[in-house]
């Protein structure tokens, strides 16, 4: 298609005027309201000894499980839509301790991150690690918060002392009443667990004779002594206990994700698992208008001649 000179001038004038109108629209059209789905969640970080094992992978780097949990929580907070609320909690012994109730993440990002940085094994107030009970307490406390947040429980699933497969700690609540996701951390191989002292400082590793290898109930039963003796003595080593976490997740009606790679995917799982709230935000269309205007302006200057469209008279 070859355009004559006056036509080209006319077309340029028209296109430029359209671009002009688009910019006027970009400047003066009011923002349109748009509904965004947001969620309230509490991130519970396991700070027990087994979390010091270095076998969590993030972007090709192997790091301590707790470092992974902190970094992944930070990235997840960063990716969540503004308006979402997040709180932080730690788990040690047999309970979760909420440090901060959910607050809006974009406005309070700085304070949340500062607090996240402070989370450390030294905060642990005891040296046991009862994951199931801690999950239950997290659920109980979440139930007291309004609006009810979902729980994102980051743990390797290592129970110490171990629990009997048929004597799982009883969950008193209704499964699914408080929603949540359990995020499994750690690798497949059994690795020695760094041992912390009363002050939370690492001093060597847990030895095979320093931990319980059978649960409290079975160990008191004389008639089970033979069976107990046959059990592998590996409780001083730790790996990600996927099947245990999955059982636990089923019990309380949570979703289970093992070592997620992408915070965005985790957010989707959290969103699917939680009761989302809709919040209306003002959405400015300026980018669309000015982008279109730019395209129009560029249209005028594209090298038509080189592709055989232009002409020359």
């Amino acid at each position, binding site marked *: 298609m070859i355009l004559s000179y006056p036509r080209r001038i006319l077309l340029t*004038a028209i296109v430029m005027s359209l671009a002009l109108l688009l910019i006027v629209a970009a*400047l003066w059209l009011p923002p349109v309201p748009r509904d965004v789905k947001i969620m309230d969640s509490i991130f519970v970080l396991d700070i027990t000894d087994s979390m010091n094992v270095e076998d969590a992978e993030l972007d090709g780097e192997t790091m301590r499980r707790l470092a992974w949990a902190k970094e992944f929580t930070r990235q997840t907070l960063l990716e969540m839509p503004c308006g979402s609320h997040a709180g932080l909690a730690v788990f040690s012994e047999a309970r979760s*301790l909420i440090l*901060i109730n959910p607050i809006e993440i974009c406005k309070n990002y700085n304070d949340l991150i500062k607090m996240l940085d402070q989370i450390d094994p*030294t905060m642990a107030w005891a040296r046991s690690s009862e994951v199931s009970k801690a999950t239950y307490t997290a659920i109980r406390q979440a139930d007291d918060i309004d609006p009810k947040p979902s729980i994102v429980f980051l743990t390797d699933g290592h129970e110490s002392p171990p629990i009997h497969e048929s004597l799982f700690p009883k969950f008193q609540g209704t499964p699914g009443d408080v929603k949540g996701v359990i995020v499994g951390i750690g690798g497949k191989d059994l690795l020695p667990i760094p041992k912390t002292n009363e002050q939370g400082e690492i001093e060597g590793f847990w030895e095979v004779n320093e931990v319980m290898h059978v649960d409290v109930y079975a160990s008191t039963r004389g008639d089970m002594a033979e069976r107990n003796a046959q059990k592998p003595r590996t409780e001083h080593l730790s790996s990600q206990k996927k099947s245990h976490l999955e059982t636990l997740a089923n019990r309380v009606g949570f979703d289970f994700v093992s070592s997620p790679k992408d915070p965005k995917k985790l957010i989707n799982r959290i969103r699917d698992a939680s009761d989302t709230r809709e919040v209306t935000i003002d959405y400015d269309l300026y980018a669309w208008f000015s982008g279109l205007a730019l395209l129009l302006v*560029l249209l005028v200057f594209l090298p038509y001649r080189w592709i055989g469209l232009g002409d020359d008279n």
Partner: protein
Amino acid sequence: MSALSWTAPSFFYLLPLALLPWLIHNQSKTIVWSKLLPVDPLSYWINLLLKSLASLIIISLLLALAGPYIPEQTVERYGEGAEFVVLLDRSRSMDEIFARPPLNTLRTERQRFKSKRVVSTDYLLEFVEGRPDDRFGYVYFSTQSVEILPLTYNKDAILATIRAGGLGKGISKTDIVEALQLAAKMYEKEAYRGSRNVLLISDGGQILSDTEKRRLKKMYEQMNLNLYWIYLRSVRGMTLDETAEDSVLWEDLPERKLHAFFKTLDVPYQAYEAGSLEEYAAAIADIDQQQYQPLLVAERVPKQSKTDVFLWAALAGLLVWAASFWLSYVGVWQAYRKTT
């Protein structure tokens, strides 16, 4: 004034597009021999101007799309208030009912009991909410102390942290000395802004070793921190100060020892003994009244978008461009009509 930041700096890669108007001549007319044209300095300058304008339009639109903004900044001003580090005891004993009437009293009405934790949380929230300019920090303490909320002006954060402190059950062991030390350290790394306070809320004391005493004394006196202790009484009738009707049992109570030590400090110290809700509320109100001194307050100015500036530039450029092309179209059209 801080520098401009960009939400989508990848648009910068498209900036070379601004050269297009200088390379492409879609709007020029090809003629047989350019020497035939009379030399016209005016149209030369107009041509140059139009090309620059075209580049300007493209650049401005690209920059507008890159989302320019001035990041959130803090502006300092003088206000009235104080700085507080809150040390809220999370020990097990705080789960007990606050101000329980003695068992031998007749219940005249049905009472709803609240734990010491819930009561102290509620009043603390009210206290914080009532002090718009203050800066608060929060220390979590069990056997170890952690400064979970470094001093901040952010009210949402401190309120949410205090609320969290009211949830669930307490933890077995707490170390007040550690927490008091950490509170002083939190101030140490900050610039002086105004009255500095440490607010300890607990229902028990602790027996301090001599080294601990010396260290605390040095820290608090050097930094001149105000110390407030709201003591939630667990033994009925017991006071922190010795009285004539003292029971022998009370003499060695850790809370008394702690109180005696606090009194030896050469810093403003005040203890409030709360045995009832009214007393507790009064203590909080009293602190509230005392602490209105000049304080350097940092206020946040939210992030400001600067897109409009670039859109205006593009708009101005486009106005001239569109106008000049309409004008030349009219001219060309007239010329064509004459020739054909």
